[in-house]
């Protein structure tokens, strides 16, 4: 049974920069893997803090990144690996189209926040994805992210695109 989407998140932020591409999120040499738990072991491995991430990431943690997160090849492995590693939510200044879709379709929420770079690595965040409100507990700041669309919310709520299609009319 897929768990229905939770609207509130609390987690520690992992800061990444601009233009983190899918080769960094999930290196091409692991593309033949199809087992999701195996894929999760290589999340963010190609970034400059890959080892640190894989060793220390905890369930519920939140990735906070700059612009164009997830650019590059269309591999869905990237979204699946991040989700599998325990990341509950990604906040970025902007996302590459395919990566953004892959996240929504696999029920990993994403929020766009112009001020994402103000959030520091390791900050504790409380996020309500329905209102788009992001509380930076560590810095005692509140941000308002772009609201996600109704259509995307429905897909997230169904537990992903394929689950959604089973109930979709027309």
């Amino acid at each position, binding site marked *: 049974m897929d768990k229905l989407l939770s609207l509130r998140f609390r987690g520690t932020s992992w800061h990444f920069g*601009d*233009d983190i*591409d899918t*080769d*960094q999120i999930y*290196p*091409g*040499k692991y*593309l*033949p893997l*199809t087992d999701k738990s195996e894929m999760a072991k290589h999340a963010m491995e*190609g970034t400059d803090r890959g080892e640190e991430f894989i060793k220390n990431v905890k369930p519920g943690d939140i990735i906070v990144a700059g*612009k*164009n997160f997830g*650019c*590059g*090849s*269309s*591999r*869905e*492995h990237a*979204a699946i690996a991040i989700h599998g590693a325990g990341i509950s939510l990604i906040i970025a200044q*902007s996302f*590459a*189209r*395919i990566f953004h*879709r*892959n996240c929504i*379709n*696999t029920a990993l929420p994403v929020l766009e926040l112009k001020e994402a770079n103000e959030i520091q690595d390791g900050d504790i965040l409380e996020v309500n994805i329905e209102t788009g409100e992001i509380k930076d507990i560590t810095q005692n700041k509140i941000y308002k992210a772009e609201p996600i*669309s*109704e*259509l*995307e919310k429905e*897909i997230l709520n169904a537990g*992903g*695109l*394929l*689950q959604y*299609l*089973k109930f*979709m009319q027309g």
Partner: protein
Amino acid sequence: MTVIEKIFSRAANKKVKADDYVWVNLDLVAMRDFGGPNVVKEYKEHFGDAPVFDNKKVAITFDLHIPARDEKVAQNQQILRKFAKEHNIRLFDINTGVGQHILLENGLVKPWDVIIGTDSHMNLLGAVGAAGFGMGTTDIAAGLYRGKLWFKVPRTIKIIVDGILKYPLTAKDVALYILKNLSTSGALNRAIEFFGEAIIMMNLAERITLTSMVTEMSGDIGFIEPDEPIFEFLRGHNVTDLEPIKSDNNNEYEKVYEFDISNLRPQIACPHSPDNVTNVSDVAGRKVDQVFIGSCTNGRFEDLKVVARILEGKRINNGVRLIIVPATMEVAMAAEQAGLYRIFLESGAVVVNPGCSLCTTGHPGILAPGEVMVSTSNRNFIGKLGKGAEVYLASPATAAATALQGVITSPMEL
């Protein structure tokens, strides 16, 4: 209306505009030897043995690891061959070539079509006025099952390219020059419509080069209004019921860029980003270990002809390895008939079977740490072709000139 608004309005049976979220009917769903096996897995997990939405509108292409390089890849290909048989789907096996090009050469693409596939360069189909989108496995599985998919209608940027493209300048130099100006996020989640003298004069191969690199600008899709030579190509490849698609070319564009290439010199993208672009002459003399000519961006017959023109009767430099890969078997046959294979082989090149080849790790020919390659491909992300390696992106002309000299060389200096 913009071209993408027109196409999505028709495919959604209602009038849509930029920023709308909409369900769109699909004309073709494609998958390939990587990505494809995960699609099948997802499909079976969620929909079991349910038939695909329309088996005539589905195609499987093998282009990445062909022939199978190891047991895992062989198993993945086996999964797809079995799925194709079960669902009576067309499968283009290891003897065909790069997926999007195979779709184009087999009458599966025409203007107005909405096409999705497991390849981030599906958008090169914009070269014939079709809306191609690279998608993840879940999107493809969804498309296979329902024949429709959700989209956010992208806003459109207009790019005008004036001036005349003249040998040894190519569409690749234009694409890199635009990338230099827009950056790798300059067209993020946008459609592009291309206009101008230089664009109108481009043949299909050149249009493919340009539209394929819209991916590197983070654009969704780049359109060039198809003209008679494009229609001629499509008709010659079994496309019937062709319908022109026109750009309104009004003021609905979010942004307009205007470039003049009259004085443009050959361009090159330095490590490790496709927008780290400069004149080839600025990095000329840099020692190179390997040159790759091919890919969905620069693997067509016209590209190979430029290479042959430079290599004919000559030997490549002793210190460099040259790998040439035609995009498709049709291209390979044309190259063979035109005598290009002899020129390539006599020059000292390795000519590989048609496919994607050196666009990703895991393919024969990847680099050792510290090695330098000039590639006609579309990406030079760090580590993509071997840890510690450096990749420069350039035109087939620059790549061939570099192979001859063993150091980065502008084709204008030959």
